[in-house]
């Protein structure tokens, strides 16, 4: 594994807009941050020689909106007991999380160059003991939601307003541990809990439909006592509106079905199961970079060739 050289870490630390920013500026800002995160993540995976780029790109818009505008946590409050918690249950997209955390200042951007390198604290799945901003060591699927329920219970015991967000894969919901946790969440009326499902309809080897269909997912979640909302998981405005508005029903936890595409928006990756953990070769890497480049909001903001 060759690894990234430090000067390939080109990403600016973009940070959050002031919460008083107009919605349209906020949305434009988030879109640009997400684009930058994708560029950086693409480099991580290409140079690191491993990673889960399909799931990364599926989730990056969600991660961006959470860290960029929703979560009440910052590098300064990363150990504060009253911080909001975000748990990445689909731990295989650690690359996307590390890049997001770096973008918002939780990690030195330079450190991204150590992704998957010997003795790096950035291995293929996040580690809360080593990486600031990580709340649980995920990777085996179906662990995040129970942990999130536990945290939401702790907030309730503390009569605290801190919130818990957890991002799961859709294939991941085939794990029964999630349904145990969902039953408990609604039993305990944990309305500070928001489950976001990255509903890209692909899992590791096939579509969810072919493997173990989840539909009707909304009916399942509703029958398990959640208030259910569906959003376009690549639309920063929709995500911002929905994730800022939770809970929708007092006393009920929220289940956000975020419709996404694995590998979005790269033409040859999008909605293609092969890109679950494929690593782009030199040519694919360049094409993906070019496609992301073309999405830049204006010429000046474009990354130096």
């Amino acid at each position, binding site marked *: 594994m060759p690894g990234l050289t430090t000067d390939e870490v080109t990403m600016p630390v973009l940070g959050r807009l002031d919460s008083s920013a107009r919605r349209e500026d906020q949305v434009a800002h988030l879109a640009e941050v997400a684009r930058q995160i994708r560029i950086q993540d693409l480099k991580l995976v290409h140079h690191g020689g491993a990673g889960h780029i399909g799931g990364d790109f599926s989730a990056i818009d969600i991660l961006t909106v959470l860290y960029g505008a929703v979560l009440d946590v910052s590098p300064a409050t990363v150990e504060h*007991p009253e911080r909001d918690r975000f748990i990445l249950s689909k731990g295989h997209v650690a690359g996307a999380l590390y890049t997001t955390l770096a973008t918002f200042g939780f990690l030195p951007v330079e450190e991204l160059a150590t992704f998957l390198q010997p003795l790096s604290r950035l291995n293929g799945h996040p580690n*809360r003991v080593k990486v600031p901003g990580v709340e649980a060591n995920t*990777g085996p699927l*179906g*662990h995040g939601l129970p942990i999130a329920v536990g*945290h939401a219970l*702790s907030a309730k*015991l503390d009569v605290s307003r801190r919130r818990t967000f957890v991002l799961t894969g859709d294939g991941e919901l085939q794990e029964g541990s999630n349904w145990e*946790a969902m039953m408990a969440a609604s039993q305990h009326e944990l309305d500070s809990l928001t489950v976001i499902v990255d509903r890209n309809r692909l899992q590791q080897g096939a579509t969810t439909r072919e493997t173990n269909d989840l539909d009707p997912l909304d009916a399942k979640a509703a029958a398990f006592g959640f208030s259910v909302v569906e959003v376009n998981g690549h639309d920063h405005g929709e995500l911002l509106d929905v994730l800022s508005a939770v809970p929708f029903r007092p006393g009920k936890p929220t289940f956000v079905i975020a419709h996404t595409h694995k590998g979005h928006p790269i033409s040859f990756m999008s909605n293609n199961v092969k890109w679950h953990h494929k690593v782009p070769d030199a040519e694919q890497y360049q094409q993906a970079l070019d496609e992301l480049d073309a999405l830049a909001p204006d010429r000046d903001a474009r990354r130096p060739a």
Partner: protein
Amino acid sequence: MTLTAKAPQTGSIADEPRYDCRNAYVETLADLARADHRIVGVVNDSVGSSKLDAFKKAFPDRLINVGIAEQDMVGVAAGLANGGRIPFVSAASCFLTARALEQIKADVAYSDHNVKLCGMSPGVAYGELGPTHHSIEDLAWLRAIDNLTVVVPADPVETAAAMRWAAATEGPVFIRVSRMGVPVVYREDHEFVPGRAVTLRDGQDVTLISNGTVLWRALAAAEQLAQEGIEARVLSMPTVKPLDVEAVVAAARETGGIVTAEEATRTGGLGGAVAESVVEHHPARMRILGIPEFAPTGSAGFLLDRYGMSPEGIAESAREVLGR
């Protein structure tokens, strides 16, 4: 050396009154909870089998019953710890360890969450309920997991002491809480020191190493051996992980052999841990006693006797190790 061992009132440890360690468990948990608001209980519909009814009355919000869902139970405990609480998970050891093993590995040990896992009614305590309810594999299973202290207290005093230590110490701990009646082995002021063996009886001829419900049986075996002029050292080894290697090595060097006896499998548990230490530091002859198979129907006591863990059986193994 034997400072905190209690002298039997009856002449023999085997004749002392017996106690269910779950009672010490729930009393201590309530004491801890009164003193520290961070302490909470987490159960899987196991309020009654963990004897937590009174705790539930005293702290209704602080006993979290997730239902019959062990994976969720351990994950929830990890999340509670992340929120600053100190959860004591109280569930039948068989289900806690077998059903939630990956959660124990990933959410608790690897994530280094401050969770106390309490395996109730371990070993063959469920007797006639059969192997699905026996938790003989738990020690081998948990000992393989990094960053997890594994404690097997022998009596109510040690159970309480281990819990107080666990509550006061940051980090993942597993404590076995016995149900089968055991006599009191320790003086009331006994303090639990993790990773430290306690010499309950000194001797140079042979060493008996045990813990949990079998420890008093080892002591009773030593009494019997003494009558034949065999002076057995009895080491209480409450911490199976990390092991007190020094005490084991001293026993290997200073006595003619070692017998381990535990309410667990013959492979990978306390006996396995001692064997691994012995071969690496001071090879010595051993007998490893435990439950070697899916046990047939029978009470806990019946099964321990059947597998050579009556006082007589342990004494016999000691003679074997000495070639007598």
